[in-house]
């Protein structure tokens, strides 16, 4: 039940893009078409899950025992960059069709701050684990939930922008300005979910 709550909270209540402001660049950059948004969402889910497992292991079994906590940022970003490269090579060999679908998004992901951000949150145990012990399992659940939240926001936003492209907007509002205001309204809509997780928790008797 708590795991379900982590999902609800990370997807709707504390949506990574719309309320935590991580991963804004791809959110604004790759959201012109629904099909690319789906691809980006899948790629992020994939990389984020693997990255969280690897960085969690590094933090708890290498950096902390050696008292090297201050190397966290530098090690994590290198690991993520390396991981993305590796995934690219493996995907190319193992599943060319998947590579076709996700390939072009992979290089963009290294500088997607939601990967590094969520890795740091999980490694430092500073995310909302809904009362569970923050360990590797809850970390991975949180990472998957977060990336679904990212994909959802991205796909909804792409849908809106596809429609938006067909209407006329004032000249100075064209492009990013109107996109940002649309994103603001979307964030406002997602605020409506706040408290839902608590409601479910109470209803389930937690």
């Amino acid at each position, binding site marked *: 039940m708590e795991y379900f709550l982590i999902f609800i909270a990370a997807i709707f209540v504390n949506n990574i893009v719309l309320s935590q402001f991580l991963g804004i660049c791809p959110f604004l950059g790759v959201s012109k078409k629904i099909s690319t948004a789906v691809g980006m969402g899948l790629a992020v889910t994939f990389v984020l899950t693997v990255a969280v497992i690897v960085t969690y292991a590094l933090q708890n079994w290498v950096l902390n025992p050696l008292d090297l906590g*201050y190397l966290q940022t530098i090690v994590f970003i290198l690991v993520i960059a390396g991981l993305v490269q590796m995934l690219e090579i493996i995907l190319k060999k193992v599943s060319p069709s998947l590579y076709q679908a996700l390939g072009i998004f992979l290089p963009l992901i290294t500088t997607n701050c939601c990967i590094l951000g969520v890795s740091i949150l999980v490694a430092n145990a*500073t995310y909302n684990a809904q009362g569970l012990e923050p360990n590797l399992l809850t970390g991975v659940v949180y990472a998957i939930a977060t990336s679904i939240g990212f994909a959802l926001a991205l796909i909804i936003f792409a849908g809106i922008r596809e429609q938006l492209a067909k209407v006329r907007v004032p000249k100075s509002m064209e492009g990013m300005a109107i996109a940002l205001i649309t994103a603001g309204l979307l964030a406002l809509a997602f605020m409506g979910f706040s408290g839902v997780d*608590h409601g479910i928790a109470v209803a389930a008797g937690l």
Partner: protein
Amino acid sequence: MKKLKSNIVNMAVVLTLIAVAAAGLLAWVNNVTSGPIEEINNLAIENGIKSVILGDRDIQFTVEQPVEREGFVFHNVNDLKGNLLGTAVESTDRNGFGGNLKVMVGFDPEGVILGYTVLEHSETPGLGAQADDWFRQKSADAAEQSAAIDVLLGAPGKPGNHNIIGMNPGDEIMMVSKDGGDVDAITASTITSRAFLRAVNAAYKSVFGYTAADGVSGASSQN
């Protein structure tokens, strides 16, 4: 100087050299700053103890060695004659808006809240951070504040209480009024408020063994 060629030896050597240099530099900076960082953390705890137990009172006092038990840290504060003035408890709630919310609460020997301070939080900057002041403000500006948000949301406002100083979690239900408690939540930050009150209740419970909120179903029972 000409640019180095991208052969495998060059690449490996340069990358290794840069990484080693970076690690060395960081080790040195870490060495230099770890002292001040620890000092600041200790100072924060020290000032925290002073402010949550004494407030504005000017009394000479001594602090006993901190005791750690079940995730709580206790600091007993005595006056110079050795009488217990109160206990400052460090308490963490894991269910804040963005994770941990760590507070220090001061109780007098009867369990009345003398003061509190927020040690660590990962709430919305500028909003959840209001917990710093909110729970010690008089309700007058509370009514005004909630009126503003009520106008925005189109809901009727009601004046309430959110000053927890002087309350006793053993007698009063320290929960958000929405959940059937006696304390008003921070405007638009119910999650932060719940986490804060849970931390306060847990701190009380760790010293005195029970709270009035235990009887009410909901938030506090999940710990």
